[in-house]
């Protein structure tokens, strides 16, 4: 059977090779790779379409290894695997250690911080940040509740999607 994947790779050397390596190693055939470096997502990553061939078990193994390696699989046979979550947090974001906040958020299961935008106010207490997450399909609600909890612990006002 064949599987069409859309991966999202960082725009740094060696990424494509890292993604393709386990496919061959596990015994699946690579039928096609469409890789356009000048087409970027809004997050600056590069979408790569790959078609692979093999028996069901091998293909499942490939998906698992890719995910374990931290490679973002956006679509499988046209079905979206990731959902976007946008959240805005209001508060003293810089003083509350931005890096620590992102780390805490990344620890939420099935969620990765994909983009972050800051707007510092004259009054630091009123600064705002917009954080975009990628969440595994079906985990959005649960992830939003956890994101809210982390924001609250830090003393931020968390504005989630409806």
């Amino acid at each position, binding site marked *: 059977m064949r599987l069409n994947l859309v991966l999202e790779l960082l725009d740094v050397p060696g990424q494509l090779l890292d993604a393709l390596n386990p496919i061959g190693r596990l015994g699946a055939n690579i039928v096609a790779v469409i890789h356009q470096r000048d087409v970027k997502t809004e997050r600056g990553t590069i979408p790569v379409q790959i078609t692979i061939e093999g028996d069901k078990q091998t293909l499942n193994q490939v998906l698992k290894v890719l995910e374990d390696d931290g490679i973002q699989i956006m679509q499988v046979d046209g079905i979206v695997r990731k959902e976007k979550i*946008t959240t*805005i947090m209001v508060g003293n974001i810089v003083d509350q250690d931005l890096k620590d906040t992102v780390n805490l958020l990344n620890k939420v299961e099935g969620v990765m911080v994909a983009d972050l*935008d800051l*707007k510092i106010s004259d009054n630091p207490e009123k600064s*705002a*940040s917009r954080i975009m997450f990628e969440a595994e399909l079906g985990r959005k609600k649960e992830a939003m509740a956890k994101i809210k909890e982390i924001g609250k612990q830090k003393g931020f*006002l968390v*504005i989630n*999607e*409806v």
Partner: protein
Amino acid sequence: MKICILGFGSVGQGVARVFSMKRDIIKQEYGLDLKLVAAADRSGAAIDPDGLDTDLLLNTKKDTGKISEYPKHGVKGISGMEVLDEVDYDCLIEVTPTNIEDAEPARSHILKAMKDGKNVVTSNKGPLALSFKELAHTAALNKVQFKYEASVGGAMPIINFAHETLSGCKIESIYGILNGTTNYILSRMAKEGSSYDQTLNEAQEMGIAETDPTQDVEGEDAACKVVILANSILNMDVTYDDVEVKGISQITPESITLAKKEGYLIKLIGEVSPDSLEVSPRLVKEGSPFAVEGTLNVATLKTDLADEVTVVGKGAGSVETASAILSDIISIWKMK
């Protein structure tokens, strides 16, 4: 139908005005003769078993500020409870100011009327948010009608809409903008890029926000409505303390700008679902049903058969709110 109004503020006066406007048409169409036999405010009451003149009543209130100054039939210093004892009536319209501390005196008025076998229509959120079960139970026990469409969303149809129009559907959740004042403030902030304090001042000058805006801006008013919807539409058994409440006073122009960059607006949303009762600022997509401006209210009901149904309407206003009270009165009449 002999009607008694307790409370003669903006909503009470709206009811009197609507009676003046619609009395003849309602008589013609439904055979319902609306006879206002008593109206009471803080000063006392006006009582006339033959029916008060609603125009004269409105003028008396306008000129003197006191309903008890009503010519010949004014009674000074009489309390709401005493009026209910004194007067022979069929239906109580309870529209005294909302009190979310202990729901009084509205709760006592409503219970007394029910126990006396009278139907009750109210827009008062206090007793509904704090003692819903007690009121619904008392109404059932005394076999009287209890209607409160005007308590949520003013003129926006939602409670009777869910009970009657969507009666075959199970309502799974409701999301909505349930407070007009905060929607006005957030809409203006998004449009003008102005600060929260500045916009609140403007809203106060325009009479959209009250001098003490706490109930609106801190989400308390919306939380009452969440409780009413949860109890009456989702058949839950909850009270005000079960709602997680966050208002809009911390919303900054910066956060609105960031939201806009991604195509979002910030709105104060009430969420009513079996796993969550919440009032909080949320991100809604521009162009979505929640992206309404000004003082409008909106609610989306998620149902099992009809999927999502959205209603929009004016959430406040004297005559607008009275329209919901009038429709409750007519539906009580039809059920007789």
